């Protein structure tokens, strides 16, 4: 199964060199964004639709290439200091904003300061914290000009708190992208709210933006790599209903479409391939370790072992999602030149009812319980979320014979209960922010806002701190392995599945890159014949 899915599902990477469309009719690609992009301000955006669009219209120093590495963007080249804490980027000559102004090193300094300024209130500012003083600036204890970035002629110099192997992944995030100070300040609060209230330096510009309807991107002739950009325009429709978008795809009004598990057969019947890719997300049960019964690791393991993950993906999700017996998603880099999941095996057997029963008995003995405990789980109240919760409920009940109730509630109410630690078990998920195992591990440290389990292990915290400070990448990988193993030994969370998605494309389309971290789908190399 794993081998079927390439890390980056590069589809039919075609003859890129000769794809420039000179003289022929304009080539337009029709895609479905699914919704209005909520926020195209690069420094404050958080959602996947905006991030996908921004990757096509605003460019940072580097960008993801089509093979899982990085390629030059606004920077022509870069150097790393021997200790790994100073990155010097040399900007390419002639790069321009869409209003004709040059892209200067100062634009990167301004962008970073704006993103970290407490007044901007950027939700993703914390992703920049590896940069020196970034956290202090964002918390308002240091002035913004103290952040570790400087402009020197056509060079941008970043100073980091400590060596950070995934720093390019972070500098590629919209929050770290440049901004033209004069333009942004002139737009005020409505910056990035309309096509003409934004500046572009990427492969495309926004030509037309009809809110909640469609957005039209036009190839940017001033872009440095314009000769290798094959599409003249990209039209992104905002169709929220997946049945509608699928009917439009069958009618050839869309060139790409997402395929839910329940519709896979329709595509096969019509002769379309439906490639699978990982979006990097992992879903798991979080146990509240402050609960008197769930404080016991063996009880938590009993529930985890009772879950039939293979059955869950096959019968409930009905797609290619993979059973998860570990927390770092497949296809995530190890940080040391390999794929983490390829070098680190998973930890326990799926649906091990015997082990689950044994764990329950041992746990009850440790707690001095004579009667079977009962559990309750909170979940979202959508149809799909409810059926997923019901499946977990049924599996645990059947395997352990315990009472297990489900309490569905609206999204925000569930999040509030998680924040307040007012739950026993919750079904939740996580998508990676950057391509490194750390994005799945450091959230389980003591007191982390995303650690709703209240899991507090000084030994685990120590491993994460060690990994953060370790400069030898091979040694760092060993520490990360140990951290993930400890997490699975203590099991404050029970991984359930790694999400896999399916999509389809018209036969004249090639060069669409799907990723689990970063803008997805990436249309930089896309060709339409």
């Amino acid at each position, binding site marked *: 199964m794993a081998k079927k899915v390439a890390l980056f599902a590069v589809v039919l990477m075609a003859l890129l060199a000769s794809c420039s469309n000179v003289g022929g009719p304009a080539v337009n690609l029709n895609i479905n964004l699914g919704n209005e992009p909520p926020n195209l301000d690069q420094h404050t955006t*958080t959602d996947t639709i905006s991030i996908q669009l921004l990757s096509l219209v605003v460019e940072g120093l580097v960008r993801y290439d089509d093979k899982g590495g990085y390629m030059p963007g606004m920077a022509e080249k870069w150097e790393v200091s021997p200790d790994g804490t100073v990155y010097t980027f040399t900007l390419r000559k002639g790069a321009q904003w869409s209003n004709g102004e040059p892209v200067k090193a100062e634009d990167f300094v301004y962008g970073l300061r704006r993103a970290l300024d407490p007044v901007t209130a*950027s*939700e993703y500012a914390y992703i920049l914290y590896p940069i020196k003083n970034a956290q202090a600036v964002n918390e308002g204890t240091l002035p913004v000009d103290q952040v570790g970035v400087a402009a020197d002629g056509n060079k941008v110099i970043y100073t980091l708190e400590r060596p950070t192997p995934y720093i390019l992944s972070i500098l590629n995030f919209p929050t770290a992208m440049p901004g033209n100070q004069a333009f942004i300040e002139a737009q005020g609060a409505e910056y990035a709210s309309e096509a003409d209230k934004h500046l572009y330096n990427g492969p495309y510009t926004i030509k037309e933006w009809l809110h909640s309807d469609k957005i039209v991107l036009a190839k940017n002739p001033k872009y440095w790599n314009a000769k290798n950009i094959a599409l003249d325009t990209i039209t992104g429709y905002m169709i929220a209903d997946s049945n*509608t978008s699928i009917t439009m795809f069958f009618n050839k009004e869309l060139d790409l479409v997402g395929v839910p598990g329940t519709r896979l057969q329709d595509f096969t019947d019509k002769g379309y391939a439906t490639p699978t890719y990982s979006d990097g997300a992992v879903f798991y049960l979080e146990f509240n370790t402050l609960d008197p019964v769930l404080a016991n690791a063996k009880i938590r393991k009993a529930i985890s072992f009772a879950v039939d993950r293979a059955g869950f993906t096959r019968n409930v999700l009905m797609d290619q999602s993979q059973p998860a017996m570990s927390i770092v998603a497949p296809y995530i880099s190890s940080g040391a030149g390999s794929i983490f999941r390829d070098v680190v095996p998973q930890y326990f057997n799926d649906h091990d009812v015997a082990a689950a029963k044994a764990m329950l008995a041992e746990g009850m003995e440790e707690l001095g319980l004579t009667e079977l405990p009962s559990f309750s789980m909170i979940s979202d109240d959508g149809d799909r979320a409810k059926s997923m919760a019901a499946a977990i409920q049924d599996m645990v009940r059947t395997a352990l014979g315990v009472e297990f109730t489900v309490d569905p509630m609206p999204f925000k109410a569930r*999040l509030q209960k998680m924040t307040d630690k007012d739950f026993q078990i919750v079904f939740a998920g996580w998508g990676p922010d950057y391509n490194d195992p750390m994005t799945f591990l450091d959230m389980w440290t003591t007191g982390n806002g995303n650690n709703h389990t209240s899991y507090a292990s000084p030994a685990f915290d120590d491993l994460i701190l060690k990994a953060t400070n370790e400069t030898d990448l091979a040694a760092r990988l060993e520490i990360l392995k140990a951290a993930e193993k400890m997490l699975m030994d203590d099991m404050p969370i029970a991984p359930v599945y790694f999400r896999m998605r399916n999509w389809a494309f018209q036969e004249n389309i090639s060069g669409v890159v799907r990723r689990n971290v970063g803008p997805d789908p990436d249309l930089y190399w896309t060709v339409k014949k």
Partner: protein
Amino acid sequence: MSLFSYIMRRVLISLLTVFVVVSITFFLMNLMPGDPFIGNKAVPKAIKDNLYAKYGLDKPLFERYLMYLGNLAKGDLGMSMTYKNQKVINVIKQAFPVSADLGIRSLIFGVIGGLLLGVIAALHHNGPWDTTATLLAIIGVSIPGFLIGTLVQYIFGFLFSNVIKDVFNTTYQLIPIARWEGFRYTLLPSFALGFSSLALTSRMMRTSMLDVLHQDYIKTAKSKGLTPLQVTWRHTIRNAILPVITVLGPMTAAIMTGTFVIEKIFAIPGLGKFFVQSVQMYDYTMILGLTLFFSTFLIFMNLVVDIAYGFIDPRIRLAKGKA
């Protein structure tokens, strides 16, 4: 009291009503567990504080209420908290005309069609026309909009249009599947949205007609020697239509301000989704802006209906009676 002063009094009462509605919404909304900036990914406390400060959520509830009213008095509905750089007023300005356009089309179809159907059904009581109309009404009331929408989309937008393409050997899409770009695009959503109003209107009209048809004055009119058309038009319909007019106010307000399901299925950039999304996402400013807009519109439509009574039925004299 003249019609003018009647309207003035109604406007004053309406303003008070809107104020009360917005105030209650403001406090109820803040009672909901959770807040706009709680998401799948928790942000560090410092960042949450920054966000709270930016949107004024760090201030006490009552102070925020007064600030909101102050801004409202200046005509400022604030910035959306979900669509972060969009003004709420701009969202309404862009999306409402689309919803209103679709709404008017489907109302014309639904109300006129429904009235006709109701009248015909009543005049042919227990006949085949009546059965047909009743059947249509039952279908319209019991089949939800998303099903009708998806069904007509597939049948006309996909199957039928593809037959046309084959027959005429063209790529012209006769009836588009979705989106909102011109007359062709309005056909399916107007039908899907208007169908339930058609069902409701025809049922009400039929019942009301049957009721009137058994009144003594109809017998009188007939025995006076009036033609059936005169009896139906001047005596029956005019009396029977009043209950329909009553529901027309709220119905118009509800349909013209956008519907979530039909707009979603046909990818129409209307106001409907914002009503649902803003509540799901705790977009406080958007919730309040839409509440204000919708309640004002609803009250206005009811006022229009009240005035329309006076023209349709001379026995109703607004100026003297109670509102």
